[in-house]
């Protein structure tokens, strides 16, 4: 089959690789009909996530049709149309029993590697480094899905791929970011990052009852999409974000701040950007946390900072004094996607949201390398690329 493989920093290649086969009784094989490139794939592309290996198949946002099931999978049949959540979860461990699917205790066979870096190991993730399992991803024609009797959700109505594909990651991720803000009537929510996850966080915050949502980025075309989802927008290259947020909230600060940026943030002051960029390049810190620093400083006293942007390792200059003295709360996590599949599919069915609003490009799988380049460099107003493996 054809698959998009990581071949080193800034290099992906569509290669011919073996077809996947069942390795365990609870596996299924899915013939992929749609697959997307995620902002977090750019962290792999840029070489900031450790334990990648040349040839790793990328991609963790995919859906398709079941073509084979293992002997212990009774919930799925050949021919079922499914969306596959990006964290792999067994459904049986204590973490899964508490709905914490992205920290499943069993799905990461390389937990020992992750423990060395993180203390304890999170779940396995499709196409996202060996520390997170060493699973091939879904930017391919087929994928093996472990614990297929637990994770994937069947799509039984005729909703098109474009509307349900993002249940695999970015819609639930944005939703969880807003949910962690514990939104009360009158709440003002600020979202750093107007990429697809930030855009879904904006839409979700409104669905969860926010009074106002303010979105911060530097690309006008992305801020426009956030504005269409209802956000007021700030271009951080034009205004001082802390001042602007103080002004917009008459001095209170946003009730909750969502970091939908993560480890490769940009900063409008070139000297500071260069300082963190240099430390990152020499591996003295792995992450550039400007959005997080700013989100903490901006948040109102007693408010919540919700972190859904991906971080890899260590950050410097974390404003702990502000965080502690002002009684802030931080909530975070890779999205526990399995929790949100059913309720969010219902929202799509009801017409409360049409997730296809984030899509800017459709490309055949062969053009994945161009998709990555375009997405990374924000060319052609690239916002979200959907790949067609059989086009």
């Amino acid at each position, binding site marked *: *089959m054809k*698959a998009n*493989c990581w071949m080193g920093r800034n290099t992906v290649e569509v290669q011919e*690789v*073996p*077809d*996947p*086969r069942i*390795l*365990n*009784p*609870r596996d299924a094989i899915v013939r992929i009909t749609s697959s997307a490139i995620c902002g977090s794939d750019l962290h792999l592309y840029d070489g900031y996530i450790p*334990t990648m*290996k*040349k*040839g*790793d*198949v990328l991609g963790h946002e995919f859906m398709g049709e079941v073509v084979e099931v293992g002997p*212990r999978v009774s919930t799925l049949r050949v021919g079922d149309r499914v969306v596959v959540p990006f964290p792999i979860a*067994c*459904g*049986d*461990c*204590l973490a899964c*029993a508490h709905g914490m699917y992205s920290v499943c*205790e*069993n*799905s*990461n*066979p*390389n*937990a*020992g*590697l992750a423990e060395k870096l993180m203390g304890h190991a999170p779940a*396995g993730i499709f*196409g996202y480094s*060996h520390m997170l*399992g*060493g*699973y*091939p*991803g879904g930017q391919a024609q*087929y994928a*093996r899905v*472990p*614990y297929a009797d637990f994770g994937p959700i069947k799509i039984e109505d005729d909703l098109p791929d474009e509307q349900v594909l993002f249940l695999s990651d970015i819609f639930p991720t944005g939703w969880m970011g807003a949910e962690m803000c514990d939104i009360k009537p009158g709440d003002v929510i600020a979202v750093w990052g107007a990429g697809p996850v930030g855009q879904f966080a904006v839409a979700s915050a409104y669905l969860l009852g926010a009074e106002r949502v303010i979105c911060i980025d530097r690309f006008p075309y992305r801020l426009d999409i956030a504005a269409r989802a209802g956000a007021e927008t700030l271009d951080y290259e034009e205004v001082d974000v802390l001042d602007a947020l103080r002004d917009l909230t008459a001095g209170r600060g946003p009730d909750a701040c969502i970091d939908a940026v993560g480890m490769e943030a940009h900063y409008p002051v070139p000297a500071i950007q260069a300082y963190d960029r240099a430390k990152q390049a020499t591996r003295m810190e792995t992450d550039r946390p400007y959005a997080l620093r700013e989100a903490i400083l901006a948040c109102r006293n007693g408010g919540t900072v919700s972190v859904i942007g991906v971080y890899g390792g260590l950050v410097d200059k974390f404003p702990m004094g502000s965080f502690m003295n002002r009684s802030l709360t931080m909530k975070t996590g890779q999205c526990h996607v399995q929790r949100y599949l059913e309720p969010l599919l219902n929202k799509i069915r009801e017409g409360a949201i049409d997730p296809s609003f984030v899509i800017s490009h459709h490309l055949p799988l062969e053009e994945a390398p161009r998709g990555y380049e375009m997405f990374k460099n924000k060319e052609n107003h690239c916002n979200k690329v959907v790949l067609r493996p059989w086009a």
Partner: protein
Amino acid sequence: MSEKNHRTHERLATTLGWASLGLGVAQLAAPGAISRLSGLDDSPWAGKAIRLVGIRELLHAAALLGTRRPAPMTWTRVAGDAMDLTMLGRAMANRDGPRRRRVAAASAAVAGITLADMYTAMRANRPMPGAGPEPITNLRASITVNRPRQEVYRFWRSLENLPRFMIHLESVETIGGGYSHWKVRGPAHKVIEWDAEIVEDREEQLIAWRSIEGATVRNSGWVRFTDAPGGRGTEVRVRIDYEAPAGKLGLAFARLLGEHPEQQVRDDLRRFKQVMETGEVTRSEGSPEGTRAQRQLFQRPAQPVR
């Protein structure tokens, strides 16, 4: 060596680490003063050489102060001492008068320090007295399994199940009367077999065993099952004592291959948890055999297995 002696030489090593730090900082901050003190201030290269030695001293300090068992790291200082003595020896040959005397004094000081370094480093290498030629290795590991204690105990007590999650085990056969026959694939694919007996079996609490006379690898151990608090399942704790087949050398060799015995037991327990909770050993294409320390170091690419 007693615990007290052990601590003495580790303390000595830490002191030497601080000495490296102090010397290194001095050499980098005031190379001129150091070169005058050691009689080298007439050489145009002295400043540069002393700064380089200073950097090396900081590396020693990092090696010694950055670990919980610094004593073996003292060997890095011994190597550095040898370099310093060589340099000072050559410097002494080219000088005379008071400058030569200062170089000689510096050399004597370094020689004294070398003795202290060598003493500490060699103490660190001495084996524990009383351990005998075949060191007993004891391994401990634990894990929480989200299943009732009775079920966890039962699965383990059916010894034939063990090879499902202990991948080094070829087979376990129960032969009646509490006896069983074990086959293990050791390092370098050598098959080792022995008979074992269950010496204690407390229903749903504990299973203890030991190998019977004549086993190639004398071993014993226990596995204990207790309720995890608040309905969190069962806590499983394992202890294994055994005499490594080729003694310390075999153990070192096995570690070199990434087969650290303690890691093996931890991996076994992780797979045990997977089998108990999910009914299968978790496999990815990067680790098709499932959790295994050796494989974690040498991953396949994350591509389908042919």
